[in-house]
Protein backbone atom coordinates (compact mmCIF):
# COMPACT_ATOMS: atom_id res chain seq x y z
CA UNK A 1 0.00 0.00 0.00
CA UNK A 2 1.15 3.53 -0.80
CA UNK A 3 2.64 5.48 2.09
CA UNK A 4 1.48 9.07 2.46
CA UNK A 5 3.85 9.83 5.33
CA UNK A 6 7.44 8.61 5.41
CA UNK A 7 9.92 9.64 8.06
CA UNK A 8 13.47 8.30 8.10
CA UNK A 9 15.85 9.07 10.92
CA UNK A 10 14.28 12.45 11.69
CA UNK A 11 15.88 14.42 14.48
CA UNK A 12 14.97 17.90 15.62
CA UNK A 13 17.24 19.81 17.94
CA UNK A 14 15.91 23.21 18.95
CA UNK A 15 18.31 26.11 18.79
CA UNK A 16 19.67 27.20 22.12
CA UNK A 17 17.99 30.12 23.79
CA UNK A 18 20.96 30.96 25.97
CA UNK A 19 23.83 33.15 24.86
CA UNK A 20 26.46 30.39 25.08
CA UNK A 21 24.49 28.12 22.80
CA UNK A 22 24.63 25.29 25.33
CA UNK A 23 21.04 24.61 26.25
CA UNK A 24 19.91 22.82 23.14
CA UNK A 25 16.87 20.58 23.36
CA UNK A 26 16.43 17.42 21.35
CA UNK A 27 12.69 17.24 20.78
CA UNK A 28 12.65 14.19 18.52
CA UNK A 29 15.49 11.82 17.84
CA UNK A 30 16.04 9.38 15.01
CA UNK A 31 12.35 8.89 14.31
CA UNK A 32 11.36 6.32 11.69
CA UNK A 33 7.71 6.17 10.78
CA UNK A 34 5.34 5.53 7.91
CA UNK A 35 1.62 5.98 7.54
CA UNK A 36 -0.22 4.24 4.74
CA UNK A 37 -2.92 5.78 2.59
CA UNK A 38 -6.37 5.58 4.16
CA UNK A 39 -5.03 4.85 7.61
CA UNK A 40 -6.04 6.53 10.85
CA UNK A 41 -2.79 6.77 12.77
CA UNK A 42 -2.70 7.75 16.42
CA UNK A 43 0.44 9.12 18.03
CA UNK A 44 0.33 8.74 21.78
CA UNK A 45 2.64 10.20 24.34
CA UNK A 46 2.97 12.16 27.52
CA UNK A 47 3.20 15.92 27.51
CA UNK A 48 6.61 16.95 26.21
CA UNK A 49 7.26 13.60 24.54
CA UNK A 50 7.80 15.28 21.15
CA UNK A 51 4.42 14.60 19.49
CA UNK A 52 3.71 18.19 18.48
CA UNK A 53 7.29 18.69 17.27
CA UNK A 54 6.99 15.61 15.07
CA UNK A 55 3.71 16.92 13.66
CA UNK A 56 5.27 20.33 13.00
CA UNK A 57 8.20 18.67 11.22
CA UNK A 58 5.73 16.76 9.04
CA UNK A 59 3.84 19.96 8.28
CA UNK A 60 7.00 21.87 7.37
CA UNK A 61 6.59 24.32 10.26
CA UNK A 62 9.90 23.06 11.60
CA UNK A 63 12.86 21.86 9.58
CA UNK A 64 14.39 18.59 10.75
CA UNK A 65 17.98 18.91 11.97
CA UNK A 66 18.67 15.63 10.20
CA UNK A 67 16.74 12.86 8.51
CA UNK A 68 14.18 12.74 5.72
CA UNK A 69 10.49 13.58 5.78
CA UNK A 70 8.02 13.05 2.98
CA UNK A 71 4.26 13.64 2.91
CA UNK A 72 1.99 12.79 -0.02
CA UNK A 73 5.13 11.93 -1.99
CA UNK A 74 6.70 15.35 -1.59
CA UNK A 75 7.50 18.08 0.86
CA UNK A 76 5.22 20.35 2.86
CA UNK A 77 7.26 23.23 1.43
CA UNK A 78 5.42 22.59 -1.83
CA UNK A 79 2.19 24.62 -2.10
CA UNK A 80 0.55 21.90 -4.21
CA UNK A 81 1.14 19.42 -1.38
CA UNK A 82 -0.16 21.87 1.23
CA UNK A 83 -3.35 22.28 -0.82
CA UNK A 84 -4.03 18.61 -0.08
CA UNK A 85 -3.55 18.66 3.66
CA UNK A 86 -5.61 19.86 6.59
CA UNK A 87 -4.37 20.80 10.04
CA UNK A 88 -6.10 21.36 13.33
CA UNK A 89 -3.77 22.73 16.01
CA UNK A 90 -4.35 22.13 19.68
CA UNK A 91 -6.64 24.87 21.05
CA UNK A 92 -7.04 26.80 17.79
CA UNK A 93 -7.56 30.55 18.08
CA UNK A 94 -9.42 32.82 15.67
CA UNK A 95 -9.76 36.62 15.80
CA UNK A 96 -12.66 37.42 18.12
CA UNK A 97 -14.01 40.33 16.08
CA UNK A 98 -14.66 38.18 13.01
CA UNK A 99 -17.75 36.14 12.30
CA UNK A 100 -17.59 32.38 11.85
CA UNK A 101 -18.50 32.77 8.16
CA UNK A 102 -15.77 35.39 7.67
CA UNK A 103 -13.11 33.12 9.16
CA UNK A 104 -14.18 30.37 6.78
CA UNK A 105 -14.24 32.79 3.82
CA UNK A 106 -10.70 33.82 4.64
CA UNK A 107 -9.45 30.24 4.51
CA UNK A 108 -11.56 29.54 1.42
CA UNK A 109 -9.82 32.49 -0.24
CA UNK A 110 -6.42 31.05 0.62
CA UNK A 111 -7.44 27.62 -0.67
CA UNK A 112 -8.57 29.31 -3.87
CA UNK A 113 -12.09 27.89 -3.65
CA UNK A 114 -13.97 29.65 -6.49
CA UNK A 115 -16.44 32.35 -5.48
CA UNK A 116 -19.43 30.65 -7.10
CA UNK A 117 -19.18 27.52 -4.95
CA UNK A 118 -17.56 29.10 -1.88
CA UNK A 119 -20.75 29.92 -0.02
CA UNK A 120 -22.23 26.49 -0.55
CA UNK A 121 -18.96 24.78 0.39
CA UNK A 122 -18.67 26.78 3.62
CA UNK A 123 -22.29 26.05 4.55
CA UNK A 124 -21.83 22.32 3.99
CA UNK A 125 -18.65 22.21 6.12
CA UNK A 126 -20.29 24.21 8.92
CA UNK A 127 -23.19 21.75 8.74
CA UNK A 128 -20.76 18.84 9.21
CA UNK A 129 -19.18 20.38 12.32
CA UNK A 130 -22.61 21.48 13.62
CA UNK A 131 -21.87 25.19 13.41
CA UNK A 132 -24.25 26.19 10.62
CA UNK A 133 -26.57 27.99 13.04
CA UNK A 134 -23.61 30.02 14.29
CA UNK A 135 -22.29 31.14 10.92
CA UNK A 136 -23.20 34.78 11.56
CA UNK A 137 -22.02 34.71 15.18
CA UNK A 138 -18.81 36.41 16.18
CA UNK A 139 -15.94 34.18 17.21
CA UNK A 140 -16.00 35.79 20.65
CA UNK A 141 -19.52 34.41 21.16
CA UNK A 142 -18.34 30.83 20.64
CA UNK A 143 -17.60 28.50 23.50
CA UNK A 144 -14.21 26.78 23.68
CA UNK A 145 -15.74 23.64 22.20
CA UNK A 146 -17.33 25.57 19.35
CA UNK A 147 -13.99 27.20 18.57
CA UNK A 148 -12.58 23.69 18.38
CA UNK A 149 -15.28 22.81 15.85
CA UNK A 150 -14.42 25.92 13.84
CA UNK A 151 -10.81 24.72 13.93
CA UNK A 152 -11.93 21.38 12.55
CA UNK A 153 -14.07 23.12 9.91
CA UNK A 154 -11.10 25.08 8.52
CA UNK A 155 -9.02 21.89 8.56
CA UNK A 156 -11.46 19.95 6.33
CA UNK A 157 -12.54 22.89 4.15
CA UNK A 158 -10.31 21.79 1.26
CA UNK A 159 -11.43 18.15 1.48
CA UNK A 160 -7.86 17.12 2.39
CA UNK A 161 -6.26 13.82 1.47
CA UNK A 162 -4.20 13.95 4.63
CA UNK A 163 -5.47 15.42 7.86
CA UNK A 164 -3.33 16.31 10.87
CA UNK A 165 -5.15 16.68 14.16
CA UNK A 166 -3.27 17.84 17.22
CA UNK A 167 -5.28 16.90 20.31
CA UNK A 168 -8.59 17.22 18.43
CA UNK A 169 -10.66 16.41 21.53
CA UNK A 170 -9.06 19.16 23.57
CA UNK A 171 -11.69 21.46 25.07
CA UNK A 172 -14.62 19.44 23.72
CA UNK A 173 -17.57 18.17 25.74
CA UNK A 174 -18.68 14.50 25.48
CA UNK A 175 -21.03 15.34 22.60
CA UNK A 176 -18.16 17.12 20.87
CA UNK A 177 -16.02 13.97 21.32
CA UNK A 178 -18.66 11.91 19.57
CA UNK A 179 -19.17 14.38 16.74
CA UNK A 180 -15.43 14.74 16.13
CA UNK A 181 -15.07 10.97 16.20
CA UNK A 182 -17.90 10.64 13.67
CA UNK A 183 -16.21 13.16 11.37
CA UNK A 184 -12.91 11.24 11.61
CA UNK A 185 -14.66 7.94 10.87
CA UNK A 186 -16.52 9.49 7.94
CA UNK A 187 -13.26 10.83 6.48
CA UNK A 188 -11.71 7.41 6.98
CA UNK A 189 -14.62 5.82 5.11
CA UNK A 190 -13.89 8.20 2.24
CA UNK A 191 -10.29 6.97 2.05
CA UNK A 192 -8.66 9.95 3.74
CA UNK A 193 -5.53 9.53 5.83
CA UNK A 194 -5.57 10.89 9.34
CA UNK A 195 -2.62 11.45 11.63
CA UNK A 196 -3.45 12.54 15.10
CA UNK A 197 -1.87 13.23 18.43
CA UNK A 198 -3.83 12.53 21.53
CA UNK A 199 -3.65 11.34 25.06
CA UNK A 200 -7.33 10.52 25.30
CA UNK A 201 -6.82 6.80 24.91
CA UNK A 202 -10.50 5.86 24.81
CA UNK A 203 -11.00 7.98 21.69
CA UNK A 204 -7.84 6.67 20.05
CA UNK A 205 -9.14 3.16 20.61
CA UNK A 206 -12.37 3.96 18.82
CA UNK A 207 -10.91 5.40 15.60
CA UNK A 208 -7.32 4.28 15.00
CA UNK A 209 -5.99 1.53 12.77
CA UNK A 210 -2.44 1.82 14.09
CA UNK A 211 -0.92 3.51 17.07
CA UNK A 212 2.57 4.62 18.00
CA UNK A 213 3.87 5.59 21.40
CA UNK A 214 6.34 8.42 21.59
CA UNK A 215 8.34 8.82 24.75
CA UNK A 216 11.35 10.98 25.60
CA UNK A 217 11.81 12.09 21.96
CA UNK A 218 11.75 8.56 20.54
CA UNK A 219 9.13 6.38 18.92
CA UNK A 220 9.10 3.45 21.32
CA UNK A 221 6.50 1.29 19.65
CA UNK A 222 4.29 1.11 16.55
CA UNK A 223 1.55 -1.51 16.37
CA UNK A 224 -1.83 -2.04 14.84
CA UNK A 225 -4.57 -1.33 17.31
CA UNK A 226 -5.71 -4.96 17.10
CA UNK A 227 -2.19 -6.20 17.96
CA UNK A 228 -1.84 -3.79 20.85
CA UNK A 229 -5.18 -4.81 22.31
CA UNK A 230 -4.48 -8.48 21.80
CA UNK A 231 -1.08 -8.32 23.50
CA UNK A 232 -1.92 -5.99 26.36
CA UNK A 233 -5.66 -6.23 26.88
CA UNK A 234 -6.25 -2.49 26.67
CA UNK A 235 -4.67 0.54 25.10
CA UNK A 236 -4.05 2.01 28.53
CA UNK A 237 -2.00 -1.01 29.62
CA UNK A 238 -0.09 -0.93 26.33
CA UNK A 239 0.68 2.78 26.72
CA UNK A 240 1.56 2.70 30.42
CA UNK A 241 3.70 -0.37 29.91
CA UNK A 242 5.76 1.38 27.26
CA UNK A 243 6.23 4.74 28.99
CA UNK A 244 7.16 2.97 32.23
CA UNK A 245 9.55 0.73 30.34
CA UNK A 246 7.81 -2.57 31.02
CA UNK A 247 7.11 -3.52 27.41
Amino acid at each position, binding site marked *: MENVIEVKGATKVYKALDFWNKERTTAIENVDLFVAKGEVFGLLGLNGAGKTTLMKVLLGLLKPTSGEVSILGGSADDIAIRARIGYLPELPYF*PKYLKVREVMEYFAGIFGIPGNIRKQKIESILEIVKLSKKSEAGVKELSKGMQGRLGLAQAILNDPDLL*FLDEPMSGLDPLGYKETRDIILDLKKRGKTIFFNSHILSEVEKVCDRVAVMHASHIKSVETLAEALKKHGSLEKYFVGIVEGNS
Partner: protein
Amino acid sequence: MNRILAVAEYIFKQSFRNRILNVLIIFAVFAAMFSLAISELAQEAEVKMVMDFGLFAIEIFAFLTLVLSMTIQIFEETELKTLMVIMVKPIKRSEYLIGKYLGVITTVLMNLLVMTAVVMLVVKLKGGDPWDIKMLTSILYSYMGICVLAATAILLSTVSTTVPSWVIYLFFVYALGHLTVHLKNLVKDSAGAALKTIVDFIYYVVPNLELFNLKDKLNSTGGIFEPKYLLLVFGYGILYIVVSLAAACFIFDEKEF
Protein backbone atom coordinates in the same frame (compact mmCIF):
# COMPACT_ATOMS: atom_id res chain seq x y z
CA MET B 1 -2.88 37.79 -5.98
CA ASN B 2 -6.20 36.48 -4.63
CA ARG B 3 -4.41 34.97 -1.66
CA ILE B 4 -2.66 38.26 -0.92
CA LEU B 5 -6.00 40.08 -1.07
CA ALA B 6 -7.63 37.45 1.16
CA VAL B 7 -4.96 38.05 3.83
CA ALA B 8 -5.19 41.84 3.43
CA GLU B 9 -8.97 41.78 3.83
CA TYR B 10 -8.72 39.53 6.87
CA ILE B 11 -6.10 41.70 8.57
CA PHE B 12 -8.04 44.87 7.78
CA LYS B 13 -11.35 43.53 9.15
CA GLN B 14 -9.65 42.13 12.21
CA SER B 15 -7.87 45.42 12.97
CA PHE B 16 -10.66 47.79 12.06
CA ARG B 17 -13.19 46.05 14.27
CA ASN B 18 -10.88 45.94 17.23
CA ARG B 19 -12.21 48.02 20.09
CA ILE B 20 -8.82 49.48 20.98
CA LEU B 21 -8.44 50.82 17.47
CA ASN B 22 -12.00 52.13 17.46
CA VAL B 23 -11.27 54.05 20.64
CA LEU B 24 -8.08 55.37 19.04
CA ILE B 25 -10.05 56.68 16.05
CA ILE B 26 -12.47 58.46 18.39
CA PHE B 27 -9.51 60.03 20.20
CA ALA B 28 -8.01 61.03 16.87
CA VAL B 29 -11.22 62.78 15.83
CA PHE B 30 -11.37 64.57 19.18
CA ALA B 31 -7.75 65.61 18.79
CA ALA B 32 -8.47 67.12 15.37
CA MET B 33 -11.47 68.95 16.80
CA PHE B 34 -9.41 70.12 19.74
CA SER B 35 -7.47 72.26 17.27
CA LEU B 36 -10.59 74.46 17.18
CA ALA B 37 -10.07 75.32 20.82
CA ILE B 38 -6.31 75.71 20.42
CA SER B 39 -6.75 78.06 17.49
CA GLU B 40 -8.42 80.62 19.78
CA LEU B 41 -4.99 81.15 21.28
CA ALA B 42 -3.56 82.32 17.99
CA GLN B 43 -5.81 85.18 17.12
CA GLU B 44 -4.14 86.24 13.90
CA ALA B 45 -3.17 82.86 12.57
CA GLU B 46 -6.09 80.65 13.45
CA VAL B 47 -6.15 78.72 10.17
CA LYS B 48 -2.42 78.07 10.34
CA MET B 49 -2.78 76.88 13.93
CA VAL B 50 -5.65 74.57 13.01
CA MET B 51 -3.71 73.11 10.09
CA ASP B 52 -0.49 72.66 12.07
CA PHE B 53 -2.22 70.97 14.97
CA GLY B 54 -4.45 68.86 12.69
CA LEU B 55 -1.50 67.64 10.62
CA PHE B 56 0.48 66.85 13.76
CA ALA B 57 -2.48 64.87 15.17
CA ILE B 58 -2.91 63.00 11.88
CA GLU B 59 0.71 61.87 11.86
CA ILE B 60 0.78 60.85 15.52
CA PHE B 61 -2.50 58.94 15.37
CA ALA B 62 -1.56 57.29 12.08
CA PHE B 63 1.63 56.10 13.77
CA LEU B 64 -0.30 54.85 16.81
CA THR B 65 -2.77 53.05 14.53
CA LEU B 66 0.14 51.31 12.85
CA VAL B 67 1.67 50.31 16.19
CA LEU B 68 -1.62 49.03 17.60
CA SER B 69 -2.73 47.26 14.47
CA MET B 70 0.56 45.44 14.15
CA THR B 71 0.80 44.72 17.86
CA ILE B 72 -2.55 42.92 17.65
CA GLN B 73 -1.29 40.95 14.66
CA ILE B 74 2.05 39.99 16.15
CA PHE B 75 0.48 39.09 19.49
CA GLU B 76 -2.00 36.76 17.81
CA GLU B 77 0.64 35.27 15.55
CA THR B 78 3.22 34.60 18.24
CA GLU B 79 1.34 34.22 21.50
CA LEU B 80 -1.91 32.70 20.21
CA LYS B 81 -0.13 30.85 17.42
CA THR B 82 -2.55 31.78 14.64
CA LEU B 83 0.31 31.78 12.17
CA MET B 84 0.73 28.01 12.30
CA VAL B 85 -2.74 27.45 10.86
CA ILE B 86 -2.05 29.82 7.97
CA MET B 87 1.48 28.62 7.21
CA VAL B 88 0.28 25.09 6.45
CA LYS B 89 -2.24 26.41 3.93
CA PRO B 90 -1.33 26.71 0.24
CA ILE B 91 0.03 30.23 0.48
CA LYS B 92 3.59 31.41 0.01
CA ARG B 93 5.09 33.04 3.05
CA SER B 94 5.88 36.13 0.98
CA GLU B 95 2.22 36.34 -0.08
CA TYR B 96 1.15 36.27 3.55
CA LEU B 97 3.61 38.99 4.49
CA ILE B 98 2.61 41.26 1.61
CA GLY B 99 -1.08 40.68 2.38
CA LYS B 100 -0.42 41.58 5.99
CA TYR B 101 1.37 44.75 4.91
CA LEU B 102 -1.52 45.77 2.66
CA GLY B 103 -4.04 45.04 5.43
CA VAL B 104 -2.14 47.16 7.93
CA ILE B 105 -1.63 50.15 5.64
CA THR B 106 -5.31 50.01 4.61
CA THR B 107 -6.28 50.15 8.30
CA VAL B 108 -4.04 53.21 8.76
CA LEU B 109 -5.50 54.75 5.59
CA MET B 110 -9.07 54.46 6.88
CA ASN B 111 -8.12 56.15 10.13
CA LEU B 112 -6.21 58.83 8.24
CA LEU B 113 -9.15 59.54 5.90
CA VAL B 114 -11.51 60.00 8.85
CA MET B 115 -9.06 62.39 10.49
CA THR B 116 -8.41 64.27 7.24
CA ALA B 117 -12.13 64.83 6.79
CA VAL B 118 -12.37 66.25 10.32
CA VAL B 119 -9.33 68.50 9.83
CA MET B 120 -10.74 69.77 6.52
CA LEU B 121 -14.03 70.53 8.25
CA VAL B 122 -12.29 72.40 11.05
CA VAL B 123 -10.20 74.41 8.55
CA LYS B 124 -13.38 75.35 6.70
CA LEU B 125 -15.05 76.40 9.95
CA LYS B 126 -12.14 78.72 10.60
CA GLY B 127 -12.49 80.28 7.15
CA GLY B 128 -9.54 78.52 5.53
CA ASP B 129 -9.39 76.51 2.31
CA PRO B 130 -10.09 72.86 3.12
CA TRP B 131 -8.66 71.85 -0.27
CA ASP B 132 -5.34 73.60 0.37
CA ILE B 133 -3.00 71.67 -1.88
CA LYS B 134 -0.01 71.98 0.45
CA MET B 135 -2.02 70.66 3.39
CA LEU B 136 -3.34 67.70 1.39
CA THR B 137 0.10 66.96 -0.07
CA SER B 138 1.49 67.03 3.45
CA ILE B 139 -1.13 64.48 4.57
CA LEU B 140 -0.39 62.27 1.57
CA TYR B 141 3.32 62.29 2.42
CA SER B 142 2.61 61.63 6.09
CA TYR B 143 0.81 58.51 4.88
CA MET B 144 3.72 57.65 2.62
CA GLY B 145 6.03 57.94 5.62
CA ILE B 146 3.78 55.59 7.59
CA CYS B 147 3.80 53.13 4.68
CA VAL B 148 7.62 53.17 4.78
CA LEU B 149 7.55 52.69 8.53
CA ALA B 150 5.01 49.86 8.16
CA ALA B 151 7.38 48.02 5.79
CA THR B 152 10.15 48.47 8.37
CA ALA B 153 7.75 47.24 11.06
CA ILE B 154 7.05 44.10 9.03
CA LEU B 155 10.79 43.54 8.65
CA LEU B 156 11.34 44.05 12.39
CA SER B 157 8.51 41.62 13.17
CA THR B 158 10.41 38.87 11.34
CA VAL B 159 13.45 39.29 13.58
CA SER B 160 11.76 40.10 16.89
CA THR B 161 10.86 37.23 19.14
CA THR B 162 8.40 39.04 21.38
CA VAL B 163 5.85 41.82 21.05
CA PRO B 164 7.61 44.17 23.53
CA SER B 165 10.93 43.86 21.71
CA TRP B 166 9.21 44.63 18.42
CA VAL B 167 7.52 47.72 19.89
CA ILE B 168 10.84 48.97 21.30
CA TYR B 169 12.62 48.46 17.94
CA LEU B 170 9.85 50.28 16.11
CA PHE B 171 9.84 53.29 18.42
CA PHE B 172 13.60 53.40 18.10
CA VAL B 173 13.39 53.40 14.30
CA TYR B 174 10.64 56.03 14.39
CA ALA B 175 12.76 58.34 16.54
CA LEU B 176 15.96 57.71 14.59
CA GLY B 177 14.08 58.09 11.30
CA HIS B 178 13.25 61.65 12.24
CA LEU B 179 16.66 62.39 13.71
CA THR B 180 19.21 60.94 11.27
CA VAL B 181 19.21 63.94 8.99
CA HIS B 182 19.94 66.20 11.98
CA LEU B 183 22.59 63.78 13.25
CA LYS B 184 24.28 63.83 9.87
CA ASN B 185 24.35 67.62 9.88
CA LEU B 186 25.70 67.66 13.43
CA VAL B 187 28.68 65.41 12.72
CA LYS B 188 29.36 66.86 9.26
CA ASP B 189 32.13 69.23 10.28
CA SER B 190 33.22 68.37 13.76
CA ALA B 191 33.24 64.64 14.45
CA GLY B 192 35.90 62.03 13.81
CA ALA B 193 35.86 59.56 10.94
CA ALA B 194 34.54 56.65 13.04
CA LEU B 195 31.52 58.57 14.29
CA LYS B 196 30.84 59.87 10.81
CA THR B 197 30.87 56.30 9.48
CA ILE B 198 28.44 55.17 12.18
CA VAL B 199 26.10 58.08 11.54
CA ASP B 200 26.33 57.50 7.78
CA PHE B 201 25.47 53.84 8.31
CA ILE B 202 22.41 54.75 10.40
CA TYR B 203 21.46 57.45 7.91
CA TYR B 204 21.37 55.04 5.00
CA VAL B 205 19.89 52.01 6.79
CA VAL B 206 17.16 53.61 8.90
CA PRO B 207 14.32 55.12 6.85
CA ASN B 208 14.68 58.87 6.55
CA LEU B 209 11.20 59.73 7.82
CA GLU B 210 12.00 63.42 7.95
CA LEU B 211 11.81 63.45 4.14
CA PHE B 212 8.08 62.77 4.40
CA ASN B 213 7.55 65.47 6.99
CA LEU B 214 6.15 68.28 4.87
CA LYS B 215 3.82 69.56 7.57
CA ASP B 216 6.56 71.64 9.20
CA LYS B 217 7.37 73.25 5.87
CA LEU B 218 3.92 74.41 4.77
CA ASN B 219 5.08 78.01 4.67
CA SER B 220 8.56 77.37 3.35
CA THR B 221 9.56 79.14 0.20
CA GLY B 222 12.00 76.44 -0.88
CA GLY B 223 11.32 73.76 -3.45
CA ILE B 224 9.76 71.31 -0.99
CA PHE B 225 6.42 71.27 -2.82
CA GLU B 226 7.97 71.19 -6.30
CA PRO B 227 6.84 68.10 -8.27
CA LYS B 228 10.46 67.06 -8.91
CA TYR B 229 11.27 66.97 -5.20
CA LEU B 230 8.01 65.24 -4.32
CA LEU B 231 8.60 62.62 -6.99
CA LEU B 232 12.09 61.97 -5.68
CA VAL B 233 10.80 61.48 -2.12
CA PHE B 234 8.01 59.25 -3.44
CA GLY B 235 10.59 57.16 -5.33
CA TYR B 236 12.70 56.86 -2.18
CA GLY B 237 9.63 55.68 -0.27
CA ILE B 238 8.73 53.03 -2.83
CA LEU B 239 12.33 51.81 -2.99
CA TYR B 240 12.56 51.58 0.79
CA ILE B 241 9.26 49.68 1.00
CA VAL B 242 10.29 47.20 -1.70
CA VAL B 243 13.72 46.55 -0.16
CA SER B 244 12.29 46.21 3.38
CA LEU B 245 9.56 43.82 2.30
CA ALA B 246 11.99 41.78 0.19
CA ALA B 247 14.31 41.44 3.20
CA ALA B 248 11.35 40.56 5.42
CA CYS B 249 10.19 37.87 2.97
CA PHE B 250 13.70 36.42 2.82
CA ILE B 251 13.96 36.14 6.61
CA PHE B 252 10.36 34.96 7.04
CA ASP B 253 10.92 32.20 4.50
CA GLU B 254 13.54 30.64 6.75
CA LYS B 255 11.54 31.01 9.94
CA GLU B 256 10.31 28.08 12.00
CA PHE B 257 7.06 28.02 13.96
